[in-house]
């Protein structure tokens, strides 16, 4: 890996008007989606994928990644000022952020959280960059057989850690995979599950499926839940740039905590499925354990804001690692991002190292620059962004639904996909309502095609021997161990519940 490549890609990004424009646009849209409670990064990507359909690879990927990277940074504003988490990842920030706002220290809390978040994002990108040489020999050892098992392991892992029953998670992942099999089979030319419906012969439109499973259910849920936030004073005293600057200084005073939390967050990001909420709580817990005196936490201690915010943003860099090099997304947001990358023609796996390392570096730089841009912009416009928290669901819902319908029409121009959208949305809402984890679906539908391709290649190369390859055995063992542990844990939890 040469310095030419590292800094050449930075220069390429900075001197490309298209990429820079898309990065700025992505950052602004990301701030919007992050700041409005109930929207979030996953929805942002789902809704905007159709707009990058057919675009060039680099500007499209930079747009999506920048947007995804900054939603967390903007999401903390409502957590701190009103105790309303933008996404689940911000729940830990409330514990100290909201009491700080109540004490008149909202500006300090915001300045600290924005800076910690920005530094966390940059450190996450650094971890990703530093691990490329480490991961390279491992990735290059993987053959099609291992990529098939990796797809199954990805679903199992995400199902395991998504909180609900593991069977539900695996079923949803398998459901996504089954939908990925719709269309012309590349081996036999049989039109699977598509009969005479020509629009299905190319496969079920990924954009339609993602919007149906993630965007429409979220909007219905937002409408059912209500969620208008109006009981707060809209007087944003103590949030000026000067007050926030004190928070920036506080973050640099606790740089060692920022560094530790960012490292923990980045490594949590590498593990598929653990997600931002886990990263935030683990780092909050770490801050409580390691900082003195612990009694201050919960009463408005700035360290309680810094630790979770560093972690949630650094996780993004970490989770790009399995996403780009193994095709196993670290989170549902990354799974949708991976789907978008595939649409843009970016194929995850060893080729990212052998042929597209420049793209990897551009993405790393995009993470760094968009994080810096988001922090700088937010430090000046926080009070206006905070107003987005009051945007009523009743007004947001029709706009998002219209964008969803528009996106479906834009993607392939086939009206039949609107009918697929309606049918799949009902299932998507059922999954949300009855606590079926949806992240494995995104992984299943994105990886289904890759898994099938890998399986056929592996079968052609090794026949039954592909099950007995050492790495295949290790991966199969990991799948079985994950399921066995989940069942054991479920059994123990049940026993505890009964005892209570």
């Amino acid at each position: 890996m040469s310095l030419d490549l590292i800094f050449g890609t930075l220069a390429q990004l900075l001197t490309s008007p298209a990429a820079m424009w898309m990065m700025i646009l992505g950052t602004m849209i990301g701030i919007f989606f992050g700041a409005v409670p109930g929207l979030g990064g996953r929805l942002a990507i789902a809704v905007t994928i159709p707009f990058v359909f057919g675009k060039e690879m680099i500007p499209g990927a930079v747009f999506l990644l920048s947007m995804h990277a900054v939603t967390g940074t903007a999401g903390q504003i409502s957590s701190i000022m009103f105790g309303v988490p933008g996404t689940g990842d911000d729940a830990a920030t409330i514990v100290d952020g909201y009491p700080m706002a109540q004490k008149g220290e909202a500006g300090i809390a915001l300045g600290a959280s924005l800076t910690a978040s920005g530094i966390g994002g940059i450190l996450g990108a650094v971890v990703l960059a530093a691990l490329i040489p480490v991961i390279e020999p491992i990735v290059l050892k993987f053959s099609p057989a291992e990529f098939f098992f990796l797809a199954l392991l990805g679903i199992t892992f995400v199902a395991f850690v998504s909180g609900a029953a593991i069977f539900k998670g695996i079923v949803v992942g398998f459901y996504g995979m089954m939908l990925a099999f719709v269309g012309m089979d590349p081996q036999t030319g049989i039109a699977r599950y598509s009969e005479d419906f020509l629009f299905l012969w190319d496969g079920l439109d990924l954009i339609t499926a993602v919007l149906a499973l993630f965007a429409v259910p979220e909007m219905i849920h937002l409408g059912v839940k209500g969620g208008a936030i109006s009981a707060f004073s809209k007087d944003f005293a103590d949030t000026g740039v000067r007050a926030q600057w004190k928070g920036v200084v506080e973050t640099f005073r606790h740089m060692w905590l920022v560094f530790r939390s960012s490292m923990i967050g980045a490594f949590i990001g590498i593990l598929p499925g653990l997600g931002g909420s886990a990263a935030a709580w683990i780092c909050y817990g770490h801050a409580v354990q390691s900082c003195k005196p612990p009694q201050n936490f919960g009463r408005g201690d700035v360290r309680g804001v810094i630790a979770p915010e560093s972690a949630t943003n650094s996780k993004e860099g970490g989770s790009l690692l399995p996403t780009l090099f193994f095709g196993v997304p670290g989170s549902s947001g990354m799974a949708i991002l991976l789907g978008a990358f595939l649409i843009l023609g970016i194929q995850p796996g060893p080729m990212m190292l052998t042929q597209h390392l420049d793209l990897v570096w551009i993405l790393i730089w995009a993470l760094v620059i968009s994080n810096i841009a988001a922090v700088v912009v937010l430090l000046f416009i926080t009070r206006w962004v905070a107003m987005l928290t009051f945007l009523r669901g009743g007004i947001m819902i029709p706009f998002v639904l219209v964008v969803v319908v528009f996106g479906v029409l834009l993607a392939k121009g086939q009206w039949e996909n609107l009918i697929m959208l309606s049918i799949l949305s009902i299932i998507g809402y059922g999954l949300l309502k009855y606590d079926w984890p949806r992240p494995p679906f995104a992984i299943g539908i994105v990886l289904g095609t890759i898994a099938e391709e890998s399986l056929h290649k592996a079968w052609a190369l090794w026949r039954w021997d592909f099950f007995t390859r050492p790495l295949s055995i290790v991966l199969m063992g990991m799948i079985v161990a994950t399921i066995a542990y989940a069942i054991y844990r479920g059994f123990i939890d049940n026993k505890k519940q009964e005892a209570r």
Partner: protein
Amino acid sequence: MSANPGSGERPTPSVLKALCHGRTLFTLLMFAIFAFMVWIASTYTWPANFLPFVIGIPGIVLTLLQVVLDVRDFRKTEGIVDPRTEFERYMDDVTKNTGGKVQMELKEGTQLQTLVEDTTDMTKSRNKREMILFGYFFLLVILVLLFGFWIGYPIFMALFLHYYAKESWRLTAQLTIGSWVAMYIVLVIVLEQILFEGHITKFVIDNWLSD
């Protein structure tokens, strides 16, 4: 209904009632999807049917297992209401995640807005709202299919904003017209996107308005 000796006065719901509950019905729907897809796959030749079998058959087994778990959980927990509010549950999460070391201190009388919603006795109104919202969504799809995006979407937007969101006609008109004009300028004039024109609109244009 039989009485459950372990649960005091609470009678255990019947298996039939558990099977008819929405949660179990949804699992049965997932089972039906897998069963149907595997059945269809059985009509394909190898290797087109290979992965649908490898994924679909375990899917059937797991959904059936989930049905059993749903029924068991329903019979165990039906009628038992978690007395904690959302806020208390959140505080329990804080305790769990920090090993009980953190007590959150808020001003007296403050509640965390989105964390206080008590959902226990809202089921009926929730179901109604779900139906209405899905109704609006399907209306949008139907309007777009019949009249095309540029005619269907403002009709939907106006109806939703005024009748569902209870906005005034003035704001409704401002938002609808404003968004329509903005989208039209960006998408049609700048980006030159051509969207589906709708079956009825197309029929009218083809038969009555074209030369």
